[in-house]
């Protein structure tokens, strides 16, 4: 028997088997994976690299809607026929040829702005398809990074508080209470004032304000597990506190942190949208789903609905897929649900 064949399937392998059996979960996993590929491609400027180019007419409608009817320019009639020949009375007439020769050295390129674009254009004529893709990059990166920061802080503090308890636990509980006592939107504003605008600021703001829920859950799990016999056995053989916390207990409660991580990705994407909408989000030269929604508000009054529709649909697909995937992940990982499938 080879070494690989002897290796038994661990808890993670079993969870993967259960996840594979969940059809909805797998479809969502593929959707999320596709978004991740898009994020990587936009980050490397392979696609949506020139989202800032004004390639369409302002507010160009999507293909399916068709070009906008030409606008009425005004009451003055545009004269028809050839220009009136003034050369016999024009004192500068002799230099016409010279000028024409000079002018022929330059080439004027007529920029033909597209009448319609796949998903339309915004008020500057930028392609909404590219904007949505670029916006997805920013929003998803913010959501993921902020969730990682929040989960890291929450898990670390929760582990310390739950494992040691006593004075350390009390101290961390006070910190937790202070954070949850302040209305969250107020707390976010306070952090936003300190950090200013930009992608990293948003990540830090959301991460530093969003760890509290994870902290409580991880703390409870650690309190439960530190009393378990397997942790006591580890203590009896001389394993250090750090080893018991992170080598023994953490892998056994990691499913809690993991599920919280993915739940927070969804909620942080939504928070980023709100922050950007309020003008506290990413800087003006960047685009995210939030800034696009905030632009769409004024466009909608004029009847240009396509930016709003594009962002909402993309965001809805991603957030729904991610949330359903998280659900499937929790079902696959939570040992308490085992046997109920």
């Amino acid at each position, binding site marked *: 028997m080879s070494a690989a064949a*002897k*290796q*038994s399937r*661990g*808890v993670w392998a079993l969870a993967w088997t259960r996840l594979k059996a969940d059809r909805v979960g797998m479809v969502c996993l593929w959707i999320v994976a596709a978004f991740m590929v898009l994020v990587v491609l936009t980050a490397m400027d392979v696609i949506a690299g020139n989202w800032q180019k004004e390639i369409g007419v302002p507010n160009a409608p999507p293909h399916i809607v068709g070009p906008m009817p030409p606008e009425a320019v005004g009451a003055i009639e545009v004269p028809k026929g050839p220009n009136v020949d003034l050369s016999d009375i024009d004192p500068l007439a002799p230099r016409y040829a010279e000028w024409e020769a000079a002018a022929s050295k330059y080439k004027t390129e007529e920029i033909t702005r597209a009448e319609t674009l796949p998903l339309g254009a915004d008020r500057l004529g930028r392609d909404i398809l590219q904007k949505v893709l670029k916006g997805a990059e920013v929003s998803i990166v913010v959501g993921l990074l902020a969730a990682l920061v929040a989960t890291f802080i929450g898990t670390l503090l929760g582990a310390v508080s739950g494992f040691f*308890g*006593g004075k350390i636990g009390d101290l961390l509980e006070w910190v937790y209470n202070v954070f949850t006592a302040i209305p969250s939107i107020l707390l976010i504003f306070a952090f936003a004032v300190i950090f200013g605008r930009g992608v990293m600021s948003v990540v830090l703001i959301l991460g530093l304000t969003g760890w509290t829920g994870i902290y409580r859950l991880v703390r409870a799990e650690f309190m439960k597990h530190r009393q*378990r*016999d*397997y942790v*006591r*056995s*580890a*203590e*009896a*053989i*001389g*394993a250090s506190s750090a*080893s018991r916390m992170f080598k*023994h207990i953490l*892998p*056994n409660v990691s499913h809690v942190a993991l599920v919280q991580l993915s739940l927070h990705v969804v909620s942080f994407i939504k928070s980023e949208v709100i922050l950007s909408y309020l003008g506290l989000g990413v800087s003006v030269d960047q685009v995210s789903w939030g800034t696009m929604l905030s632009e769409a508000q004024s466009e909608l009054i004029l009847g240009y609905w396509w930016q709003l529709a594009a962002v909402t649909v993309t965001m809805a697909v991603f957030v729904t897929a991610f949330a359903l995937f998280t659900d499937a992940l929790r079902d696959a990982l939570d040992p308490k649900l085992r046997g109920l*499938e």
Partner: protein
Amino acid sequence: MLLSIQDLKVAFRLGKEHGEQQRALAVKGVSFDIPENSTVALVGESGSGKSVTAMSILNLLPTNAERSGRILFQGRDLLQASQSELLAVRGKEIACVFQDPMSSLNPVFTVGQQLVEPLITHLRMSAKQALVRAEELLHEVGIPEPKRRLKAYPHEMSGGQQQRVMIAMALACEPKLLIADEPTTALDVTIQRQVMELMGKLKDKHRMSMLFISHDLGVVGEISDHVVVMRHGEIREKAPVADIFNAPQDGYTKALLACRPSLSENPARLMVIDDHIAGKAADMDHKAKDPDAPVVLEVSGLKKSFWLKQGLFGKREFQAVKGVNFKLRKGYTLGVVGESGSGKTTMGLALLRLHEQSNGTQGGQVMFDGRDLLTLGRAEWLQMRRRIQVVFQNPYASLNPRFTIGQTLREPMEIHGIGSSTADREARAVALLVKVGLDETAMHKYPHEFSGGQRQRIAIARCLTLQPEVLVLDEAVSALDVSVQAQVLNLLKDLQDEFGLSYIFISHDLAVVKFISDEVLVMQNGDVVEQAATAELIAAPREDYTRRLLGAVPRGYQGA
């Protein structure tokens, strides 16, 4: 015939695999009868299908169960009965008592409220009548001051009293059949004795029948008229109780009777089921122990107390262990017995300093190799720690589920720098696995792939990696089936002979303690009540409490 079960099969749906419905057959065609006014016992080890059989009578099974066959109760087939017909039968004609009284009673209602409920729904009594009847019932099951107790909540009562309340609830409507699923397993021996006597008395008084489910032949022999022995979902033997104990026909029944340690016999090794089927006789050959063996552990005045919260900021000291003294010689076993709450486990963990310091104070001396374990500094304690190890009660909880067995066994060696390389440690781990009766393939498996007995062997192997001198065994065989218990007890004896280990064997089970110990410490409420050599203690107990404990041990069928 009150109840007749004919060819009962129970299967559990396990979900689909490759589009096919997977089923596990838990009961494979079981038939037996319960005559009126008699007690039938269902005996078997875990997984034998005894509880599933009993619970299928009232359809108290999970929703993924499928039943077939016939269950005739007074001529009616309960398998065909509609939900409303079943509801009428449940509680009124057939009542149940479950294993764990703490979780069977609803903690947010008083005992009185819970007792009154079946009286009002089934017997259509008025609230006032029902209260009067409830008081009578509590009196009948031997609860003092029944009137006051009606207003008590379950947590205000002891485990034995809670089980009495459960019995009172079951009796409320004077059922014709009482199904008791391991009703005394969660109770201390002395309480178990009282509850068993109560059930016997009530059965005679109310002229009802009882289906008594138990894993313990000792209990069954005392209470039942007929015995049905089950294994792997099949009936191995059914006979009147006298025949089962005096002339068992089936090899498995014989083995079950033999592998249980008893107070009267004194074998050097217990019989295991395979031995019995192979027809070997019990090994009665005791190895003499060296009476001048050096003392490895000397404990004097060991105390442990916990802080209990009182009021908003106050705390009160609770003394769990009030001063224990003993000496343990190399190669000897000290048994520690006592009922729950006697402080025996607290004492064992205090030796290993496994209590959290912030929870309470610890006092006394634990001299090991000339040094006091309780006052050692961190670094020195780590060095001493490898010489005194512990095996816990629950083999399902004491191994890290995310570690392979190999990782579990290597970790202690890595911490203490035993073995020169990973390969060397692997080799040592494999050797120990073989020693405890497993093989090399176990190295790469996870704990969930092993049975309880196998896991306990792995836990023992983990301790042995550190080559300890003293092992604290905290109820180490209590969670195991009798046949597995016998194997693990034999293994412990073999290891003691081979390595000269000293054991501190903590258990509530006097028969097991008697089998393995050289000296016994009897504890009650944190005090040592009696301390004597095992044979002496069993033959001539000095203290009243010891005599009560010994008297309460179930002895099986003793003849008329």
